[in-house]
Structures are given as structure tokens and as C-alpha cells.
């Protein structure tokens, strides 16, 4: 392991430890532990804000989910770099509203079984394994929400988790090709696809309730300070991580990162540097947090989860230049359709729409605004299709939008007469 990668491990680990300390400090050790246990059997489908149960427990639960991700990356012997950091911080963010260790581990094991069958290492499928935890609510639903004895439903939920994990690599690989890497949350797209079948089956059994929004509207100091503290920490680490005199090159790399399209797979740590990437992550965090503060959005579990995902992909496809047009598209759509900027749908769409950032990065800001606009009304429709079973609902909606856009652009580009043979 390289020296800089070791430091990156320290940066990510220290962020997770900060969340654990903040969690225990907010609610006390006993109350936090009790509520962490409660979260394991709490309904996890969209949108279930874990900070309503307990802010401390939500933070520690999220950090535990992130630690599982870090352990998977370490033991599967893949580099801790842009893609793996993206997966770890994304699942950490979703640990605030849906992911728990209980509902994540069976899916990871399912992907591991698929990797053994395909005679690959878990490392080869490590990103699918971690992002695949988006289907965690299905595990929780089978275990604790369906009628039946827990004695039977608990093992059944594990089997369901293993099964969806097992089929994920096949689905994720196939769906990646149809949008050509222009939707960053491809596994979210795949999980939504699988979620359609799961929801269809559950609806046939009359076992899937309507969606409920559990949404914390109370701002708490710990949650309000979490993002700016992490943002400043990431920027400082970015400036210092590659040695005493590296701040200048890290800042230059931050500028260079803005020139990439961000199309999958764009590992900024490899294309530029870890220092520049951490600065990019920190700056994106500050922009999102500032916007949330300006519009007076509640900084609850889902909103923080959204910002965490933007930070996460700051090393793997997102940067200021390709995110802002798509976010602008969502804001315009919100205002055009007369919705509130702080309502759950629009505020979450604003952060998660950056899954389409590569379209703005490649085709320009107008294309970014258009897909952002489309994304808002798509994402508010798709959650009901899979019954909220896919936590990365924006990845699912983004995949559909990206597929439509790419299909059109591909048709346009492959039918340009000036490139035909001359008659």
C-alpha cells in the first residue's frame, strides 16, 4: 500500500470515528446503543429518516455501515481510491436513512457468492457489493414487516439479501452499457430494476404498503455542523496529504479536475491526485451545505445523506463544473412546477441529481440543465414503482433519464451525413 493511500485510509477512518464520537456525545452511550439496535428492525424503505429515532444512533449506525465498507475494501485488496471512497461514503450517508449493518451484510455476501461462482475475487465486484446495499430495505422488510414468525422471516430475509446480491453483478454490468456510463449511480439504477420485480411480487401478495415519508424537520447543532466540519477537514487534508510543499500542486489538480467530463469510470485520484480530489470533495460539500442553509432546508438524515453522496462522488465523477448545471435544472423544475425548494422530493433530487453530472461535463451546461429538469419529475414517479425498496431512487430515475438522453444523442451522432462515404 502506498504512503498516500495509507493517509487516505486515515482520512476516511477519522471521518467515521468523528461521526461515532459525535453520535455518542449527542445522545449518550446507552441511549445511542439502544436506538442503534432499534434501527436494525425499523422500516427502512424510502424515506425513513433515522434521525427521527435518535440523532446519535443515526450517526453511529451510518459510521458502522461505512466501517463495513472500509473493511470490505481493505480485505478485498483493492485500492482505496476514487471509486472505493465513493462507495464507502455513499453507504455511510445512506446509513442515516435506510442502510443498517443488518440489511447491508447479506447483500454484500450475496455478491461475494456470485464472485466465487464466476471465479473472480471479491475485489472485482467490491463496488457492486457496496453500492448493492441500496436494496437493504428489502431485507428489513422481509425480516420485520411481513406477516410471519420472526423465527422464519429472519432467515428468509437473509436468503433474500443473498439472492439479490447474487444477481446484482449480472444486472449492473448489463445496465451500465445502456447509458454508457453517464449515470454515476449505476448500481442504484440496477437495484431499482430488481426492485421493480420485488415490489411487483410483494404487491401481488398484498404485502407492500404505500410509501411513508418520515422526515425530521428539527435542526440539531450536531447535524448542522457535520458537513462544514467534514468539508474543511477534507480541504485541509487535500492540501497536506501529499507532503509539506504539495499544496500548490493539489490546488492546481483541483482546477484540472473541473475539466473532466466525469463519465464513468473517472477516478480523479488516478487522473490527477488524491490531494486535488479531497479539495474537490470539500468544495462540493461546502456548496451543498451553503445552499441548504440559504433555503433553510432541514439538515436531517436524508438531506445529509444526499450531501454525503455528492462528497463521495467528488473523487469519482462529480465536480463543481459538471454538478451545478444539473442542480440548476432541478431548481428551475421545482419553481416551474410550483413546488417548495425545501420539500423532501425537490431537496433530495437537488443533491442526488448530480448522478447525471457527466452529461453536463460532456455535452455542456444546457444539456445539464435539461436533464436536471427532467430528473425532478422522474424521480418523484419512480419511487412508487419499486415501493421505496431501492434507496438509490435517484440512481434509478437518473439511469432512465441518461438512457433516454444517450439514446437520442447516439442516434444523432451516428446519423451525421458529413461522415458518410461520399457517393
Amino acid at each position, binding site marked *: 500500500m502506498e504512503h498516500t493511500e495509507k493517509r487516505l485510509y486515515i482520512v476516511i477512518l477519522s471521518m467515521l470515528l468523528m461521526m461515532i464520537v459525535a453520535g455518542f456525545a449527542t445522545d449518550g452511550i446507552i441511549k445511542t446503543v439502544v436506538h442503534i439496535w432499534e434501527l436494525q428492525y425499523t422500516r427502512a424503505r424510502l424515506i425513513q429518516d433515522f434521525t427521527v429515532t435518535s440523532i446519535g444512533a443515526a450517526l453511529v449506525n451510518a459510521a458502522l455501515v461505512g466501517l463495513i465498507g472500509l473493511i470490505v475494501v481493505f480485505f478485498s485488496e483493492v*485500492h482505496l481510491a476514487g*471509486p472505493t471512497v465513493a462507495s464507502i461514503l455513499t453507504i455511510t450517508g445512506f446509513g442515516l436513512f435506510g442502510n443498517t449493518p443488518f440489511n447491508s451484510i447479506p447483500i454484500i455476501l450475496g455478491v461475494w457468492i456470485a464472485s466465487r461462482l464466476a471465479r473472480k475475487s471479491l*475485489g*472485482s*465486484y467490491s463496488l457492486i457489493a457496496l453500492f448493492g446495499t441500496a436494496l437493504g430495505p428489502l431485507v428489513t422488510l422481509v425480516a420485520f414487516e411481513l406477516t410471519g414468525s420472526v423465527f422464519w422471516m429472519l432467515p428468509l430475509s437473509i436468503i433474500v439479501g443473498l439472492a439479490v446480491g447474487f444477481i446484482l453483478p449480472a444486472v449492473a454490468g448489463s445496465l451500465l*452499457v445502456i447509458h*454508457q456510463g453517464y449515470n454515476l449511480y449505476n448500481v442504484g439504477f440496477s437495484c431499482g430494476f430488481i426492485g421493480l420485480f420485488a415490489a411487483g411480487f410483494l404487491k401481488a401478495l398484498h404485502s407492500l404498503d404505500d410509501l411513508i415519508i418520515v422526515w425530521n424537520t428539527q435542526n440539531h447543532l450536531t447535524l448542522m455542523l457535520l458537513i462544514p466540519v467534514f468539508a474543511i477537514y477534507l480541504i485541509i487534508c487535500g492540501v497536506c496529504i501529499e507532503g509539506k510543499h504539495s499544496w500548490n500542486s493539489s490546488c492546481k489538480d483541483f482546477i484540472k479536475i473541473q475539466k473532466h467530463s466525469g463519465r464513468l469510470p473517472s477516478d480523479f485520484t488516478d487522473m490527477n491526485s488524491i490531494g486535488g480530489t479531497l479539495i474537490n470533495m470539500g468544495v462540493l460539500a461546502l456548496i451543498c451545505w451553503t445552499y441548504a442553509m440559504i433555503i433553510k432546508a432541514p439538515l436531517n438524515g436524508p438531506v445529509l445523506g444526499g450531501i454525503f453522496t455528492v462528497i463521495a462522488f467528488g473523487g469519482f465523477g462529480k465536480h463543481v463544473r459538471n454538478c451545478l448545471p444539473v442542480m440548476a435544472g432541478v431548481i428551475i423544475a421545482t419553481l416551474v412546477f410550483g413546488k417548495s425548494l425545501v420539500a423532501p422530493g425537490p431537496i433530495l433530487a437537488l443533491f442526488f441529481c448530480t448522478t447525471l453530472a457527466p452529461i453536463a461535463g460532456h455535452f455542456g451546461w444546457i444539456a445539464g440543465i435539461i436533464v436536471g429538469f427532467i430528473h425532478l419529475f422522474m424521480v418523484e414517479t419512480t419511487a412508487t414503482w419499486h415501493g421505496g425498496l431501492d434507496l438509490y431512487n435517484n440512481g434509478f430515475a437518473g439511469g432512465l433519464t441518461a438512457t433516454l438522453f444517450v439514446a437520442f444523442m447516439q442516434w444523432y*451522432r*451516428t446519423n451525421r451525413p458529413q461522415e458518410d462515404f461520399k457517393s
Partner: protein
Amino acid sequence: MKRKEFLSRLIGEISGYILESNPLRMVISLHQEEDGAHIIIFDDKIRDKNELQEIRKALNPTEKRPELAEYYGMMAGRDAAWDTRLKLVGWQIKKATVENNDSGTQIELWLGEDSFNPANFTM
């Protein structure tokens, strides 16, 4: 992954790259053995040192990236409309050489199982 599919993706991506410069001639040669394969592709375009170095860098990554090779490698050779990405090929092969010859550029790719040693290749 089946050999046929794997080879077809790699050839698709690398030929896509060559075709971007609109050559008048492109030749692809494939030689397979039990544990590996050798692909040679050449065209009639002489490339400058910087471009050759960029191709070499993309096709010979300094580190193995199994998490990217297996998953995102699926996109190799599937995209004719936009820029080709030689890194998708680089992550999945053992070694590549890139040189200008008398008439154009020649790219050689060696691929195979972990045990495969290009030095033992019998052509």
C-alpha cells in the same frame, strides 16, 4: 467471461480508437494460445511522441484495478458514438507496446490468465 466476448470487446475499443484518426488502412491480427492471446493492430498514421506516450500510459496502468476492470470493463468496445477509452483496455490486459513503424502506428496487446507470461508466447 468468454474468450470470444472478451476479445471482441478489446478489439472493438482499440479499433475504435484507431478509427478516430480516420486511417486509410487498418490491420488487426489475433494469435491465440491455451493460456493467452496476442493482438496486433496497426494503421497508416504516424503519431507524435506525446500521443504515443499517452497511449502507452493508458494501456499500461501502473496498478491493477480489478474493481474497475471487471465491472466498468464491460463498457469496452460498446461505444462507437463517443470518445474511446483505452484505460478500459489497459485494466484488462497483461501488457501493451506502442510504437511507430515505417508506415504508421503499431499497438501490440498481450492478454491472458494470471499465469500467462508474454515472454513464453510462441508465435
